[in-house]
């Protein structure tokens, strides 16, 4: 029998018996950030492709929720900080090796960009909107002239926003469950999928609906592929990774992950989408909600399970 115990009563309660330094605030932010990234990505993509007229929900309408998502996300992050009085230090330093620093600065770029994008389309919601001040009007003109450049910035930064959260977690090699390079692409895919799902909920146009349903199907396929390869990678890796994977293959997180994230969040909506494409009538909102649910559960489960996985003891 092998025993490995801490005999001096270590009681660093956030670290023992396993890490629980991050609570609901982090997965919530990861979801909101990923969702915003997805929406802004499609907005920028279809604007650059000149498909603004065909897919107005994607390009003009859906982005209206992103400022709220980002602000809520930032608030969640702020609440999570333990040394709140010093949060501004994030913005007096750029640390290229710290994904958290990238994240801070990325948000610093993409949040104003999302506000600006919405401001440019404000008259879709409030036709009689008047900026009142001259300087505001001149800013509007400036961005309208440079809308394509703005869209490119938004495209790039939305990809960074979507992928960096996964890279951030995967940079923690101390948490074997997160230490896989598949996590970045997986989170990006999940975010894009969530974005596409929200556009599905908001749109009224059948063409737009068909496009984003197809996009969702493709992305779900990619996600399933990534998940399978992620687990194959874990099981072929070192003992700590095998144990991390076991949490999802018979361990405490098995039920919640495979049922909530994979079945309810990916496979079932995919089936519904396929049926829709085969002309069975499915309420549009159903698969979209399921995808959003799966997306948020993915992040919650991964953040909590990741903190349980460890190298020692």
């Amino acid at each position, binding site marked *: *029998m092998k*025993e490995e115990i801490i*005999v*001096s*009563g270590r*009681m660093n309660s956030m670290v023992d018996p396993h890490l629980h330094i991050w609570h609901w605030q982090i997965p919530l932010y990861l979801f909101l950030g990923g969702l915003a990234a997805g929406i802004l990505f499609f907005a920028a993509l279809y604007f650059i492709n000149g498909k603004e007229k065909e897919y107005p929900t994607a390009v003009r309408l859906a982005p209206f929720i992103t400022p709220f998502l980002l602000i809520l996300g930032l608030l969640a992050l702020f609440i999570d900080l333990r*040394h*709140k*009085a*010093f949060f501004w230090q994030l913005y007096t330093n750029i640390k290229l090796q710290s994904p958290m620093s990238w994240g801070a600065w990325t948000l610093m770029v993409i949040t104003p960009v999302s506000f600006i994008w919405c401001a440019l389309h404000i008259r879709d919601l409030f036709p009689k909107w008047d900026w009142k001040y001259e300087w505001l009007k001149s800013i509007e003109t400036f961005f309208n002239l440079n809308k394509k450049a703005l869209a490119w910035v938004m495209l790039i930064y939305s990809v960074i926003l979507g992928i960096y959260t996964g890279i951030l977690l995967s940079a923690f090699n101390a948490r074997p469950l997160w230490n896989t390079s598949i996590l970045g692409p997986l989170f990006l895919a999940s975010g894009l999928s969530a974005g596409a799902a929200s556009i599905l909920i908001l749109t009224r146009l059948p063409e737009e609906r068909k496009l984003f349903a197809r996009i969702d199907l493709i992305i779900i396929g990619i996600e399933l592929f990534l998940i399978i390869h992620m687990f194959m990678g874990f099981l072929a890796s070192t003992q700590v990774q095998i144990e991390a994977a076991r949490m999802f293959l018979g361990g405490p997180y098995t039920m919640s992950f495979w049922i909530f994230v994979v079945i309810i969040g990916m496979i079932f909506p995919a089936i519904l989408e396929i049926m829709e494409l085969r002309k069975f009538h499915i309420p549009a909102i159903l698969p979209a909600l399921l995808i959003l649910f799966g997306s948020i559960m993915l992040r919650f489960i991964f953040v909590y399970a990741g903190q349980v996985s460890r190298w020692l003891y």
Partner: protein
Amino acid sequence: MTNRRDFIRITAYSAGALALGGGFIQAAKAFASPEAALKVDLTRTPTYCEVCFWKCAGWVYKNKDGSIRKIIGNDEDQHCNGRFCPRGTGGVGMYYDEDRLKTPLIRVEERGKQVFREASWEQAFEYIAAKMKTIREIYGAESMALFTHGSGSAYFTTLMKAYGSANVAEPSYAQCRGPRDEAFMWTFGEEAYSPEITDIRDTKCLVLIGSHIGENMHNGQVQEMSDAIDKGATIITVDPRYSTAAGKSKFWLPIKPSTDIALLLTWIHEIIYNEYYDKKYVEKYCLGFDQLKEHVKSFTPEWAYGITTLTPDQIRKTARAMADAAPAVIIHPGRHVTWYGDDTQRVRAIAILNALLGSWGRRGGFYRPAKQPVPSYPLPLFPAVQKTWQDLFPGMYSFAGGVVSNALIDASIPENNPAYPIKGWFVNGTNLINTIPNQANTFKAIQNLDLMVAIDTMPMEITGWADVVLPECTYLERYDVLRVSPHRKPAIALRMPATDPLYNTKPGYWIARELSKKLGLETYFPFEKQEELLDWQLKQIGSSLDEMKKTGVKTFEREADDLYFAVDEEVSFPTDSGKIELYSSAFEESGFDPLPRYVPHEDPPDGFYRLIYGRAPMHTFSRTANNPNLTDLMDENSVWINPKVARLWGISNDQYIWLQNQDGIVSEFKVKVRITERIRWDSVYMVHGFGHAQKQMKRCFGRGVSDTQLITKVLVDPLMGGTGMRGNFVTLITEKTEQEAAS
């Protein structure tokens, strides 16, 4: 009058200001970073530790505002060599523990119900003095008994003697080291002392019989064992449990519990019949060799194998290892040796083994201690003592060199028919409830008393049974007697207060003196301030209080270069015969075995396991269980169970269970299970000192289990009254049945 809008606005501003202010405070603290700690000025005062009884000398460091910061060892001190153990380092917790006794208490309801009223010192002393006078009138002064442990023993002993009673018992005698002191006394003419005179740092072979140095954190012993390991010494551990010492041993003998005497006798056989013994030494210094040789003739390793389950090969190899190292070999006398009732005989076997190997008085064996003579202030003669404890039950425990505490307790119960009753107890610094086995007997004794006074720093169990509780301040807040301990060089250490007593607590000296005034005995405490007495004493030996305050410790030179025997030295041992008595005629004359014999002890019945207990290095008995720094390290004990046993019972690791002993006593609280290969399948092990039932001690109440509660069968050593505690067996209860819950 502000309207609602203003109110909301003001509230919002205030909330904002509070948040901002909170932020500022956070900011201020952050800017006062750990690196700023570089500039801290600390002052220090000398003390010696009172957490356990090793009494290491050290320095108490205080912050600028006078608050105690940390305690560090005194580099000049032979006991600790500048390094304190975790209890000593954690001594700050004793001071800061908010659950401390704060004011004198007088009982207002039935004894044991723990209902007290707060009283002034004056009221408390009046109460006590009145009762003491009554006891003396009706029963005689000898009916007052004092149970004591620690530095305060001196003052309360003086008080008792002045009052007319010599019934002063230290439970550390009959409940702990008594048998080994008598065994060595009746072999070598000297006890094993405290600190033990074991020359571990220079030994080549250290043999531990059940001794668990490393978990038993007697500082000097652990330090010297580490030195021995560095020098490549062989350690042999005889223990049914894989102790920390066993983990560092070359040979671990996983002996069947209670069979140690068989092993020792076999070793003696091996040492004699293989002629490993020190012939010159034995011939010159020892008496009774021939009888010994005849006595151990049949105790072969094969014989021992059947009894101890140790293979003959192991026994022979270890005997050889001891012989190869001789005379730099120590068969350690142990410390807490009250196990099975034949303990004096077992340690006699240890003493004999040491004598045969010639380790007594030799380097790497046992050295000659030197103690600095410090004069006591001349006091008036004590009144003649009419009766002593030996008169209580005449003829019992005739070889006891110390007062037997359990005899005093038994004499408090009329049904035991003592020659005279014990009607009053003073209990100073010892938690008798967790110290004396067979708790029911102790409770019964207490209920028969006319007076029970407890002096303590914490609301330990014993205080709940007192009539008057006197709160003493901790050792960090008071002066005390000079520490004058025997060691390689004679040395003294000073204890002075680092800070004033907290709450309404007082030093032991003051308590004894004030009480003496009420009894008209103040001539026995001529100095009002203890520091004046200390200064007087120090001046007698060429020092002074001022000097000691600066150095803390003063080491003197030995009078002669006699740390070890000189070659061919004519040594006269302080025994009856002047020689080392391998064969004890004194024992024989009183009808006891002159040479140790193996007597089998009871085995656990089916479904029961022997209860073995021990120490943890971060705690001292039950007294540190509430210390905040030390509970951080260990806040409950666990019961060690062998995996085979756990499988049998279907128990999993970290499960909580109750324990029930052979007399049907069920533990009051649950204890955590530790499934480990370190314990034999016929025993369970736990650390002593937990399972506190005092709600006032918030950190330790209900945590873990009290082994004392489960020790109801007491195996008394007929030679000197030691209370053997390892003859109890427990079974495991995984659910309390309705019946047990109702009882």
